[in-house]
């Protein structure tokens, strides 16, 4: 179902030191954020449409509460990276910083750099709308627009951004096919999206996200509201999608991380504890806390 985690090229993975300090190869100390952050060489160019994402010195706050404390992390293009950690460790917050959804919460702010390839998402003067256009997001609870039909839900993003060339209908169909939902809904495209089952709704949301053709898809516990069978469908879908997108998935379910992710990051109390190939994180972690967590001793 998933790609063999061991196939991940080692040089694209950064392993953190136990105290969650500067993780990037060749970078110096955590106190001074590196002006530029190295990104790994692009993967096989024939499959690359996704782009690498690099976080450096990322801090996030809710008012005075410090939720993400200086995370440095590199997500390889066209790979699935899972973020695991106990509730409240800041994993969702960190992911929401990547497409700047974090700042939509009143009182919330973020500091640091998030690079999409070599472009800083937090560059001054950059339009936040264009960031979200390039970095899509799937949320914890399926959230189709309740007033729209299935078709309109998928077309919503396209209508906003203005579909380029290809007719709307084709793009919607392609997205629904891409989300593995086409066969189930093709006869009732104009019935309300809210009438679908939870799992179908979540795949509808994925279709809506891929319709605007982002480079990166962030998934914030996309299966936590779904039953096991629906979860399985979404996980299969994730594995198919990674050929075209870079995927970051937050999950509280370690089995899920093991099934879908090429590499896995473990977070605790707002800090990145360890990052490496999924197999290594689960079988042979270097940090004691990671080991305790993956073996189910806390969290």
């Amino acid at each position, binding site marked *: 179902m998933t790609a063999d985690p061991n196939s991940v090229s080692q040089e694209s993975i950064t392993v953190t030191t136990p105290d969650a300090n500067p993780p990037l190869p060749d970078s110096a100390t955590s106190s001074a954020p590196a002006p530029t952050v190295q990104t790994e060489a692009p993967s096989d160019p024939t499959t690359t449409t996704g782009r690498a994402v690099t976080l450096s010195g990322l801090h996030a706050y809710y008012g005075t509460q410090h939720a993400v404390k200086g995370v440095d992390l590199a997500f390889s293009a066209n790979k699935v990276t899972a973020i695991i950690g106990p509730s409240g460790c800041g994993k969702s917050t960190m992911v929401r910083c990547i497409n700047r959804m974090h700042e939509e919460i009143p009182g919330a*702010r973020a500091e640091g*750099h998030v690079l999409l390839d070599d472009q800083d*998402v937090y*560059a*001054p003067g950059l*339009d936040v*709308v264009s960031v979200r256009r*390039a970095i899509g997001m799937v949320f914890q609870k399926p959230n189709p627009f309740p007033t729209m039909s299935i078709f309109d839900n998928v077309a919503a993003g396209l209508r906003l951004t203005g579909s380029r060339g290809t007719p709307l209908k084709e793009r919607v169909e392609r997205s629904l096919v891409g989300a593995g939902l086409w066969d189930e809904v093709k006869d009732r495209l104009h019935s309300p999206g809210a009438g679908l089952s939870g799992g179908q709704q979540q795949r509808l949301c994925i279709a809506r996200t891929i319709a605007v053709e982002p480079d990166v898809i962030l998934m914030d516990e996309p299966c936590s509201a779904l039953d096991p069978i629906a979860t399985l469908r979404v996980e299969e879908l994730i594995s198919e999608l990674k050929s075209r997108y870079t995927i970051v998935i937050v999950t509280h379910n370690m089995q899920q991380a093991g099934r879908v992710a090429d590499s896995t990051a473990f977070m605790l109390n707002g800090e990145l504890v360890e990052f490496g190939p999924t197999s290594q994180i689960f079988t042979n972690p270097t940090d004691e806390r990671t080991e305790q967590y993956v073996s189910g001793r806390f969290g």
Partner: protein
Amino acid sequence: MNAVDDMTAPTPPSRLAPISARRRRTDKFARGMLWAGTGLALVPLALVVYYLLSRGLRAWSWHFFTSDPTGRFIGDPGGIKSAIIGTVLIVLLATAIAVPIGIGVALYLTEYGKRSRFANTVRYFIDVMTGVPSIVFGLFIYIVLILSGTFGGFAGWKGSVALSLLMLPVVTRSSEVVLNLVPSGLREAGLALGAPRWRLILRVILPTALPGLVTGSLLALARAAGETAPLLFTAFAVNATTFNMGQQMNSLPIQIFNDVRQAQDRIVDRAWGAALTLVLMILIATLLARLVSRRSRTK
């Protein structure tokens, strides 16, 4: 986002291209319209307040508050003493009628009726009462209390009854909301102690909800104080000050209504002075209501 500052955006981001000029214009235009709409809504308020102050203060004097209207069209038109006293008495009596009944009905709805069919019917008709125009209440009281002849002619207390009909739905609805906010844990704790329900209501529920009940009653009072229509053919109007609620009574709204229609500068001035007085009285009641609710929230 301090960290961003030391990072100059290298090249104009290609993938993070800014959104189309048309979309940005639409967004700006729509936001501008929303700003403008809100501003537009406040223009009348500013104008009303400005004219009330500039014209009203001019009319104010010691004499203005301490003398009754003379009823003369030439020379000194007199002040508004009888109107102020009349308004205070009529509104206080209306409150004394509406508040106990309103809270009683609300208690029935929250403590006994709950979701029963009868309770829902009562709720429905309370809502219906909210929508009844105030002048229709005036007509009704005229028919029942004056036309029938059993209670004599125009009288201050009949004006109070008409106003209390107006206040009743406001008091009931706001009290129901507040009573529903009393934690059910408190009710259960009381009942589990073996307290009879009436004691529970008197000792626990009413005291807990008291600030909210006071707020709702004060807001209803403020609304009733400005009403003219129900008083037109119930309390009617006389010039002289009276404390006898069985007699015809003057009131501020009626005084203003009658003065507006006199083409006499000094009488119109009195209308502005009376209007400023009335608005200030209503404002004080409203402020008091807010103060009570704020005090209870901080507690």
